[in-house]
């Protein structure tokens, strides 16, 4: 790579890091306030039905050295977090960082896999539509994409489990060990379900089709045709690469949301399921950790988008 191309990317990285830091600060504060204001507290939930002592939660809090004031609690969490200490889960006592990374990888696998499934369905339809215009075949394919997107994730998930379990006896409902027969199918199902019905298929089709056909009508594509070159090659950057990264980046939050449901349905040990459990337990440190990881995922998506945009179009770095 030429030296001139590195400078804008370095600048971009620095700026993105600063924005990410601010974002983490904001997100953690808002989330903290929300859990703090919501009814119930971690130790009350934890000790429910296990002790008759009315002041047991206060005693534990005192023993752990939790400051009473909300701002002091947030600040102590923030200071520890900046030093790399995300605390321990109030329920399991395990360090939050390790837990979150463990489930985060599972969720990342689910998210990326389902994005791939979505793209595998949407991209051919979109490109075909952009090249050939609205033909009957195309219309049917597009409608199919819309119907797929409209299917609720939980419904499709249960249907998939029902059919595969009861009609084919394919896999057990527990997270399968890799030694088990058909275990790869277990991994495939949630990915497929989330990929099919995360609601982004139709949007990818629409967005990519519009962008691609806009680029196809650009003057420089006419020039490419006039010299006998491939129009796909010439439209690739503006018509495909930029829109596709843009839509991936903008859809990551939706897919993470869908992942919460899918992980519940399939007992997938991922971030979404852990977040749900942590919210039930009012598990402050764990909720905060998961929220931060989700925020980082989303930022990574938009970073990818900016990165590709600058690589493709050096003008963008001057904006």
């Amino acid at each position: 790579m030429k030296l001139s191309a590195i400078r804008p990317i370095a600048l971009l990285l620095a700026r993105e890091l600063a924005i990410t830091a601010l974002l983490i600060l904001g997100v953690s504060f808002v989330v903290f306030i929300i859990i703090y204001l919501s009814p119930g507290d971690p130790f009350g939930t934890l000790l429910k039905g296990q002790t008759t002592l009315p002041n047991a939660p206060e005693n534990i809090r005192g023993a752990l050295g939790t400051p009473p004031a909300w701002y002091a609690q947030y600040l102590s969490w923030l200071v520890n977090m900046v030093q790399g200490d995300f605390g321990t889960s109030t329920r399991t006592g395990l360090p939050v960082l390790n837990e979150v990374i463990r489930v985060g990888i599972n969720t990342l696998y689910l998210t990326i896999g389902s994005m791939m499934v979505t793209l595998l369905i949407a991209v051919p339809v979109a490109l075909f539509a952009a090249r050939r215009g609205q033909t009957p075949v195309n219309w049917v394919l597009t409608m199919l994409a819309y119907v797929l997107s409209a299917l609720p994730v939980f419904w499709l998930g249960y249907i998939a489990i029902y059919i595969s379990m009861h009609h084919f006896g394919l896999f057990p409902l527990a997270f399968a060990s890799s030694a088990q027969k058909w275990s790869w199918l277990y991994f495939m199902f949630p990915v497929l379900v989330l990929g099919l019905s995360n609601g982004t298929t139709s949007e990818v089709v629409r967005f990519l089709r519009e962008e691609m056909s806009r680029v196809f009508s650009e003057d420089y594509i006419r020039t490419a045709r006039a010299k006998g070159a491939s129009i796909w090659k010439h439209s690739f950057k503006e018509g495909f690469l930029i829109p596709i990264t843009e839509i991936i980046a903008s859809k990551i939050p939706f897919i993470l949301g869908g992942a919460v449901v899918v992980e519940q349905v399939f007992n997938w040990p991922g971030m979404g399921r852990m977040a749900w459990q942590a919210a039930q337990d009012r598990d402050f440190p764990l909720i905060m950790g998961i929220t931060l990881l989700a925020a980082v995922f989303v930022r990574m998506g938009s970073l990818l988008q900016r990165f590709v945009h600058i690589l493709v179009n050096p003008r963008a770095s001057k904006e």
Partner: protein
Amino acid sequence: MNSRPVLKIENLRTFFYSKGKRAFVRSVDGVNLRIGKGETLGIVGESGSGKSVTALSIMGLVPGEPGVIIGKIGLKTDNIQKNLLQDLRDYVKINMSTGRIMEVYKDNVGWQKNVDRVMQGIRGTEIAMIFQNPKLALNPFIPIGKQITESIRINTPIKKRSQARERAMYWLAKVKMDSPRLRYYNNPYGLSGGMCQRAMIAMALSSDPSLLIADEPTTGLDATIQSKIVDLLADLKSSVGVTTMLISHDINVIKALSDNVAVMYGGTLLEHGPVGIILSAEHQAKHPYTAALLESIPREKHIREKGYLQAIKGDVLDTINIPLGCRFYSRCDKVTEKIQEKCDNHEPDLREISSGHSLRCWLYYE
């Protein structure tokens, strides 16, 4: 005119659907042209007279979905001899009644595939094209040099990347790009319009085409750059000598570069002949439209005498409702009592009135 033709267009018609497919826009309506080897044919006319659509029809690059393209475009070069509109009829069903097209059923996908198949090996290789607005016509994401190299590797026997790059550098120097070795790596947005047009010209010529179509090569450039591009094209004409179809609404550009001139109006040719006859002010026997075009060139003398810029009165012909008679009749100021009836109701045909000079006007017929 006597050398054998590279391109021979016979009765070309390119019609577009108007909104709702209720009528046809007859953008090109019965054009006959021939371009001899080594000749530069200038096509002149107001905007909307069908010049660009003629060029795009030749290349099979008509934008959108044309209703129909019929006629014959014969290309005859050292390597290839074929009718570029061959087999297109298979994809269209035309209902004609009383000589007029009433309905068209068309298989657009099949049509487009056929066009692409026929044009394979012709676009770029045999016919190269220069477009207007060079900054938009070059791919903004690829350095200009790479675009030229790509064209060379597709359209010439040079396939090795390094050799093609050397060749591209040669052409960049040939079109007088300053410091071609640096400019090679520039994307179009880093260059001025004039430089982009030079790169366009280099790209078109680099494939050593049999025919070059220059569609308004000076449009969208400022005046000083325009004259430089014209100088460059004149230079290249003498040094490279490629057969050229030059389209412009700028008469001075046509005058500077052409051997023969065709004047287009409302989708047809009104006049065709050597540049010396058609575009010289002294030669009197010319079509009223050509005369009016020449009048409308801003000249100091005219402005002094009249105090305003001379324009042709009226608007360009509405190509949906073609009149029965002469297309220029409604704007013509040379109609006489004697021929008025004919002008209004009968379209004159293109007749040769002197050697190599033909026109379409009742004034000059017996």
